[in-house]
């Protein structure tokens, strides 16, 4: 439903290719699209308004005469503006001179405070600390029980008593001191900001336990309410930062932007799943991309990094470069991609995927069927599908439990794909990996220059609306568009991607 910003800009900028700079009217149109995107991302209404004023100034000043992709330039500007807001100071935990360092968690019901408490416990333990968890949520049935279980999983002790939240906090602090624990994490009950009594209660908890850090735990899917909530909690508790949860969903998370703008406190941590390991410091650049609907490219890269066998990746890159990509390579890639997780969610992370592909319910059975067919081929057949005549087709069909129709279809589609990939291979060939060398990890010949060229291709794809820019009306890859890749694109967002990945700029040696 939410088209990517770049797709939206496509229309606007297609008309502008002849002109250089943006006229006022053009800027207005562009700003309208940005406003739409931000509101759909749940960024607060007022924050959007203020933001647009700033972006407008920057856009009008943009000299796009030399840019081959003004859309990309504008997106980059907006992206930078968002990173500027979200980034800035990253919160680093400074431990109290006299332990324990006390962390207080507050927020609305269901935000994920208790789960975060457990994760923080684990996080601090991994950092070499000795945390203690305090269960001061005496309101929600079995909340303390839940914290006990999580504490057990994290290897962190849990303290509570059936008295009242303030008393628990005070006693927990005393206990932490007694036991020599140097970090105390206090979980509190969820509360609505309009409940004066409960807001007063959390204030008293804070006064009693004197936290070194107070974090507001916020659900990434929260809407316009984010600002009211943050302001109220900030007024009561003087927040130090925000912890954003449930980022593994597809909510764009505009709340992060709103809260930072209005309350001035950074997002300190990001919780990205239900497991305790799914917890990390916050990445402003990724959030900016996500809010703009640019797909979580960097998460995708990470997943690939984790699951893609480097040797296989290099081998395939080499194959691409040499202009050949066989069914055998395809099978290998399929294995790797399967390791990255459910295809559906991977698709979800790719920027500008055409809706049909994104929503295409890729059944496991389909994957299995394709695999079976290829496995029923001999190595020779995989490398040279033209060998496959009638009798071989039959054999393959029988061997894989399918029928010749399926085999034919696979071969046909694959052949078409190979044709489509020719121009793309020409573009990437010779840059991503040079030749093969026996050797394991780290033996790749990928140079920083090659990597940067790879990133350039990526940015081009994104600017052109991602994959959608590459498909024709029938949903198939358009060879002309692919060759267009080579020519289009500009200096654009290359820098931001490079920066965010910590890659060296050209001219510098990598490492």
């Amino acid at each position, binding site marked *: 439903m939410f088209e990517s910003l770049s797709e939206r800009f496509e229309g606007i900028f297609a008309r502008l290719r002849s002109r250089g700079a943006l006229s006022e009217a053009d800027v207005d149109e562009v700003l309208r699209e940005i406003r739409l995107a931000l509101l*759909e991302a*749940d960024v607060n*209404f007022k924050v959007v308004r203020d933001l647009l004023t700033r972006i407008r100034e920057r856009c009008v000043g943009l000299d796009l005469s030399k840019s081959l992709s003004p859309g990309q330039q504008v997106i980059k500007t907006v992206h930078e503006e968002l990173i500027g807001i979200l980034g800035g100071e990253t919160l680093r935990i400074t431990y109290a001179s006299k332990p324990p360092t006390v962390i207080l968690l507050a927020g609305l019901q*269901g935000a994920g405070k208790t789960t975060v408490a457990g994760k923080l416990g684990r996080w601090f333990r991994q*950092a*070499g600390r000795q945390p203690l968890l305090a269960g001061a949520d005496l309101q*929600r*049935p*079995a*909340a303390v*029980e*839940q914290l006990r279980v999580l504490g057990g999983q994290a*290897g*962190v002790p*849990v303290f509570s008593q059936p008295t009242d939240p303030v008393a628990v906090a005070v006693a927990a602090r005393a206990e932490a001191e007694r036991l020599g624990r140097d970090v105390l994490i206090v979980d509190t009950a969820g509360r*609505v*900001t*309009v409940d004066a009594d409960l807001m007063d209660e959390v204030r008293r908890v804070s006064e009693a336990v004197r936290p070194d850090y107070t974090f507001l735990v916020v*659900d990434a*899917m*929260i*809407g*316009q*309410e984010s600002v*009211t909530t943050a302001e109220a909690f900030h007024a009561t508790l003087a927040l130090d930062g925000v912890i954003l949860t449930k980022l593994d969903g*597809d909510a*764009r998370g505009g709340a992060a932007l709103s809260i930072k703008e209005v309350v001035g406190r950074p997002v300190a941590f990001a919780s990205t799943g239900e497991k305790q390991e799914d917890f990390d410091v916050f990445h402003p650049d990724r959030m900016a991309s996500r809010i703009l609907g640019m797909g979580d490219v960097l998460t*995708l*890269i990470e997943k*690939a*990094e984790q699951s893609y066998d*480097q040797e296989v*990746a290099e081998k*395939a890159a080499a194959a*691409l470069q040499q202009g050949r990509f066989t069914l055998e390579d395809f099978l290998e890639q*399929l294995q790797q*991609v399967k390791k990255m997780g459910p*295809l559906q*969610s991977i698709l*979800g992370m*790719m920027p500008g995927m055409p809706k*049909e592909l994104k929503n*295409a319910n*890729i059944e496991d059975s389909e*994957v299995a069927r394709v695999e079976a067919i290829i496995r029923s081929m001999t190595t020779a057949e995989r490398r040279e599908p033209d060998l496959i005549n009638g009798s071989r087709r039959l054999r393959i069909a029988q061997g894989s439990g399918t029928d010749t129709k399926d085999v034919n*279809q*696979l071969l046909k589609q694959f052949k078409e*794909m190979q044709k489509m*990939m020719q121009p*793309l291979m020409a573009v990437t060939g010779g840059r991503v990996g040079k030749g093969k060398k026996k050797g394991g990890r780290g033996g*790749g010949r*990928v140079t920083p220059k*090659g990597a*940067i060229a*790879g*990133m350039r291709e*990526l940015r081009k794809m994104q600017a052109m609306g991602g994959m959608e820019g590459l498909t024709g009306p029938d949903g*198939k890859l358009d060879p002309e568009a692919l060759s267009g890749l080579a020519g289009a694109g500009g200096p654009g967002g290359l820098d931001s991607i490079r920066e965010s*990945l910590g*890659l060296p700029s050209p001219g510098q040696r990598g490492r």
Partner: protein
Amino acid sequence: MTLVVVVVLLAVFVMVVGGAVLVRSRRYPELEPPDIEVAAAPLVAADHDLLPPPVVTPEEAAAVEAEALAVLDLGIEPDDVPIQPAGAVDTVPVPDLDVPEAPPLTARPRIRDRLGKARGLITGYVGSVLSRSGIDDSSWDDIEEALIRADVGVATTGNLIDSLRQRVKSESLDTPEQLLSALRDQLKSDLAVEDRRLHLAETGTNVWLFVGVNGVGKTTTIGKLGLRHVAEGNRVVMAAGDTFRAAAAEQLETWAERVGADLVRGAEGGDPGAVVFDAVQRAAARGADLVLADTAGRLHTKVNLMEELRKVHRVAQREPGVVSEVLLVIDATTGQNGLTQAREFAEAVGVTGVVLTKLDGTAKGGIVLAIQAELGIPVKLVGVGEGPEDLIDFDPDEFVDALFAA
């Protein structure tokens, strides 16, 4: 076979990116977490539990029961209700149902009362519109802003305003009062639905399945609904279908005890379908009227979890189970993602109604307009607090009036 296209695209994409991957991974060797020595047993202070352990003596049970009843203010004297100790892991048996007729619950809260504290925002816009002499651009801006601030969403707001503009033209409206009145009417009619009841089939064992993402209030809603039905004289079985979250079954168990419902639970990490199936069997065996089945919160983006949910739904329908309601629980503070949630869950298991929770903290929940408009799924219940009685039937007129009351 779109699969071929997809995988090749993906592979190409990843390979193109691969260069960066390989460079980066060499620049940032993974940091090993420090080796930490763990004490043999966690150093826990005196292990105080909040609630009495499941197996209690009749005296303790009586005390707890009395306390619970007092909290619920049902006016039932402890002596009237025979107490049974909670049994083994499987079920918490219901006290015999020959109790004196329970007096009606305290009058159900009205939305307006509960939203009272949270009203300020929309009221401000209403005031602004009314402060002008006629209907001008600022009026429309105010309305647009009010709707967006209520999480109605850009698209739905746009449609609403288009309709309103047409109406203003065709009916020649010119005062702000008329404009606001027209807006109220429009919202009410957009939310109008013929059948908003919670359905119960005539035959079979009724199951109401509760689904939704994490933290929205499924378990609490089940507790409240359980109370309502038990108070009406029904026998209710709660199924602790959340076998994933730590202490989820304990949470539901507390509610079951509070309201006087049976509970069926399984082992943590066990098969949720099995728990629901068990619950249905038990309900049928005991002639219970309704099974309220809890499920684990799950993000709709997780394919395998949605598949698991489909399975639970299928299992719940095995004889004699009849899934007469699939209720999607949505947090009223949710933004535009609420629509995506509704869409995905509807596609997976077919949602029959929405429960909008936590409305006490916010005068919003506008996403339900989009859900109704696009998916035709009505809001059936509204949660307005954490207490057992904080549940009301959704009434669009009340809902809209409360939003715009000056």
